[in-house]
């Protein structure tokens, strides 16, 4: 290569890195701005929850006096009861719903039976109806079973878990990508279908199991409309969102605003921890080397 050509090539190379650097910088700037915008509300809430000089809304963000008063005051209300209600509800829902969804997905992915396709289509169609439509009839059913007001927690559990088989799409899609010959090998090796699912399929599907657990947990944890409807103002049957909502009414907000923020922080805590702990499984791919390749 002649010198001219080398120089030209080098120039091109330099140009390439320069343009890459510019685009990278632009991307980082945009990302930084977006994350700041997203984080502002959270930062505000955390800061407000430590403000002790006044309990109402004020025009500044940084507290003038810091303290744990708002968190301590929560204990004087029904907050921890609601919190426990929600927590139990979310844990149980997450556990049951995950089991049902994974079994359902495995069945639809691996078994071939006559009604398989009609069933899948039916569930797809049913899933398109908004959940709100069913509220009145569900209320009547739960009322007849005596599962409203102070008994609304088991009632809610029933509602959350009952339809969970319909959320099979994502995990069925994932199971479909796992070679069937792994199932067959395990079955020949002496495993029954359940053991195949537990010992072969699930360990290979960690990301999807985690996803299922997280979504199943988040549903009841953040539910408001249905929980409020079923509990009918009875404190014992409220979840944390419904309970805390009352603090924001016209006559209460001045008294309870900072406490509301403290409650909000506590509500956000388990979900945040859950995500921090489980996020690494999201990216972990484990299917390499299963079959040929």
């Amino acid at each position: 290569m002649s010198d001219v050509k080398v120089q030209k090539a080098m120039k091109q190379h330099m140009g390439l890195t320069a343009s890459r650097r510019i685009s990278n910088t632009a991307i980082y700037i945009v990302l930084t701005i977006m994350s700041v915008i997203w984080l502002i509300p959270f930062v505000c809430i955390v800061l407000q929850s430590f403000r002790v000089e006044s309990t109402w809304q004020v025009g500044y963000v940084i507290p003038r006096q810091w303290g744990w008063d708002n968190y301590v005051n929560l204990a004087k209300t029904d907050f921890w009861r609601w919190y426990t209600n929600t927590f139990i509800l979310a844990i149980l829902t997450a556990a049951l719903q995950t089991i049902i969804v994974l079994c359902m997905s495995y069945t639809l992915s691996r078994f071939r039976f006559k009604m398989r396709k009609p069933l899948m289509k039916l569930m797809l169609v049913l899933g398109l109806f908004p959940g709100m439509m069913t509220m009145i009839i569900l209320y009547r059913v739960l009322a007849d079973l005596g599962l409203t007001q102070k008994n609304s927690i088991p009632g809610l559990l029933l509602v959350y878990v009952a339809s969970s088989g319909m959320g099979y799409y994502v995990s069925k899609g994932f199971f479909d990508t796992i070679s069937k010959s792994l199932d067959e090998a395990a079955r020949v090796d002496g495993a029954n279908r359940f053991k195949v699912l537990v010992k072969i399929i699930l360990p290979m599907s960690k990301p999807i199991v985690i996803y299922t657990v997280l979504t199943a947990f988040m549903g009841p944890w953040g539910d408001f409309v249905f929980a409020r409807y079923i509990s009918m103002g009875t404190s014992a049957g409220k979840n944390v969102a419904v309970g805390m909502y009352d603090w924001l009414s016209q006559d209460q907000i001045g008294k309870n605003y900072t406490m509301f923020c403290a409650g909000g922080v506590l509500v956000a805590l388990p979900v945040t921890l859950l995500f921090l702990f489980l996020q690494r499984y999201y990216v972990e791919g484990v299917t390499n080397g299963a079959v040929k390749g």
Partner: protein
Amino acid sequence: MAAISLKGVKKIYDNKVVAVHDFDLDIKDKEFVVFVGPSGCGKSTTLRMIAGLEDISEGTISIDGVVVNDLQPKDRDIAMVFQNYALYPHMTVYDNIAFSLRLKKVPEDEVYEKVTNAAEILGITQYLMRKPRALSGGQRQRVAIGRAMVRNSKVFLMDEPLSNLDAKLRNQMRAEIILLRQKLDTTFVYVTHDQTEAMTLGDRIVIMQDGYIEQVGTPTEVFDMPANKFVAEFIGAPKMNMIDTRLTRMGDSYMVSPFGVNLFVEGEKKNLLLKNDVQTQKITLGVRPEHMTLLPAPAPDAIPCTLQVNEMMGSELHLHAVTEDGSRLIARVPTLSLTLAQRESLKAGKTLYLTFDSRVMHFFGEDGVSLLSDADYRRQLEIKKENQKQEIIDALASSDKSYNEIMSFLLGTKK
């Protein structure tokens, strides 16, 4: 250690496709049987039915005298090696091999002993703590074989275990499977589409096409006495030369006239033709390339033809030639049977004189069935095929339409 018996086994898929027709076979204890045939011939389906991975539509399969039709794979006491290895990717090699033993709740020290023992036989001891993705294709296949080995089961099933390996490794693994077989001394059923594997591994070979068994026999039998044209062409490489010609009977002697050259049929072949009382008819004459003899000069019994391609394979030459009427012939000639000068003279365009004697002739009637096979076999074959044709027609006619109609009504869709 078990005999397997398949009686009238049939596989019909949901879409009414018949994958396997009336499969009858008795596999003896400790026998190595190979199912071979082109893809889609039903060989894998049959194997999977033995394993319990496919339902049996009709007929019975029994292992060791016990009908296993309704038994789960885990209850059949079989081991299987898959084409794509099917190793559990989240487990180490050790755990992969130990999986079946742990399911049986074998004590852990016994598991250790068995796994290390199998690993030693297969030469994978140093990889025991690796995950399958860190292994090469050959090593993975060894692990898959190891996983089947430790089960010590009655029947060893292998579904094209070598077809994902490269040619060199395949030869090596083939030899290892023969050694493995000597060590395990159990019943093997092996599926392949490669006739070389079938010939070298099998005690008996089952040649299949379109769900039918074409012939069952030892490698020698299927090579020397192919039952029909399909078997004749499938076994052996390059495939058998097929020459359309005429078989003439004159009293107690027979004559064929390929490309106008008259050749008399002598010896054993003549006796078989006489026994079957074969008359003068149009036939397809089959001669394997390796049975063609290259003559140095024209002779009364030599077929003249023009050399087109000379493939030097090392130990032998594959001579592709074309006769005067445009038919193609292939001859396999050992390299050492020719002098260097003779070999160099074999260039495209040279006229060759090929011949063969009656020991190597195969005669196929117009229906493709060998005229040398006994008459009973031919009759059975015809009755069977006729029956099966009728069955398919019946099945199609009575196929259940009501279910589809109800579903399309319910969902408002039409297929």
